């Protein structure tokens, strides 16, 4: 089993190497004057369709994004429990099925409550 993860780890190294090399290639080509490098203040200013930039880009965002992320985490944890259950359901039989039904039902109560209270709406 660990040999398989050895493959995964080494593929990770190869993938990082590939991506970094791809990004270093233009730097090398710039060194031998194939890729141009003529920065000027206008060119490297923030692109906003020609307008002057007002304020910073790093501004406070809508709180609603955070709510969706919280819902997502709760459901993601539910899903993690589903994987081993799904693999073994044939052996677990009705007992396992009802166990998972109750488990999901408890979480779905929260989801239905969110729907009823209209917080799933994007405003």
């Amino acid at each position, binding site marked *: *089993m*660990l*040999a*398989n993860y*050895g*493959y*995964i780890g080494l*593929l*990770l190294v*190869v*993938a*990082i190497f*590939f*991506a*970094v090399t*791809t*990004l270093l*290639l*233009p*730097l090398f*080509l*710039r060194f031998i004057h194939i*890729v*141009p490098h*003529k*920065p000027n*203040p206008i*060119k*490297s*200013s*923030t*692109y*906003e369709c020609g307008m002057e930039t007002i304020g*910073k*880009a*790093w501004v406070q965002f809508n709180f609603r*994004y955070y709510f*969706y*992320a919280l819902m*997502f985490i709760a*459901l*993601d944890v539910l*899903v993690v429990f*589903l*994987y081993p259950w*799904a*693999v073994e*359901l*044939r052996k677990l*039989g*009705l007992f396992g*099925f009802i166990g*998972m039904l109750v488990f*999901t039902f408890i979480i*779905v109560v929260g989801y239905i409550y969110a*729907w009823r209270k209209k917080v*799933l*709406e*994007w*405003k």
Partner: protein
Amino acid sequence: MSIFNPSLNLFNCYLEALPPDWPGGFWLHLGLFVVIILAFVLAMIMGFIWFERRGIGRFQVRLGPNRVGPFGLLQPVADAIKILIKEDIIPAKGDKWVHWLAPVVAFVPALMIFAVVPFQDGALLADLNIGILYVVAISSVSVVGIFMAGWGSNNKFSLIGAMRTVAQAVSYEIPVVLSIIGVVLIAGSLSMNEIVKAQSIPFILLQPLGFLIYFIGACAEINRTPFDLLEAESEIVAGYHTEYSGMKFALFYLVEYTEVLAVSAIITTLFLGGWRGPVLPPVLWFLIKVVAVFFLIFWVRSTIPRIRVDQLMAFAWKCLLPLALINLFITGIEVVVLPEALPWTIIFLNLAIMAVLIVLWSKFFRLGGGRVEV
């Protein structure tokens, strides 16, 4: 040093659990499959780019690229050379390191997915026991790369694009994963190779609703056109890669197509029976199915207009999620109560259930029309 001594015994146990060909065969296998994966990904993406541009040209009653090489076949090569010799612009106000690393962080997970995709029986880099869970886990890392791009650029359009990506990925992940679990229920394994072997009938017939949900959700996760709000040209220029040029932009472009290829390969493996098929060699079947799924994806792209952000969220949370949950438990009941039933009964039952559910949901729930404050 008392912590480390006992662990040596444990390591000896691992040694016995390894396959006998660990030293020599390991490196050969690794070298072979790394080359195969890189060649497969790059060649298929070149092909896909050409195929999509020509195909969309046809859909829009025009020719598409036809100047470079026969039928414009060398167009992707010309694009690659052009993009390589472009100037690399880094925004002065941005976070330089984050801006530079973002394409790498986005690209690496997309490539890593192919480690568990079986090209043929047993022909995959690593046949993990948790194959499909690995795919779900590793593909959730790409979002971080896209967010880094939005952040590192210090550009309002980029950041809005990145925020939309996060919201979209977060919303569509759950229905996608629930539909995958429907497949796992029938196959009884998480290993990609075992899932293919379990498909004497392609699972698209046993899981029609699951397939639809996976297809829609995956299109949203990889930001294909009906769901490409993060790079909506009419609203936010180019979204998260507004400030990218040259090779870094090319890497993001590559990520987009790598993810499309990954989704095609996963749909092929989970729902279309992978490399299985009569007469032709398995590898060819695999490639045919991947290209067919890709054709379906860009057919959808050229047919359906982009949807609005409130519709996007409502569709995920109020339509796909409940349908995926219902589908999951109906499949569970079938697995527990009717394990011996004839496949054709199950197929007709599932098709009927899918039709009823979709009609019911379309009556019961509407995506709001008219104007909405965003």
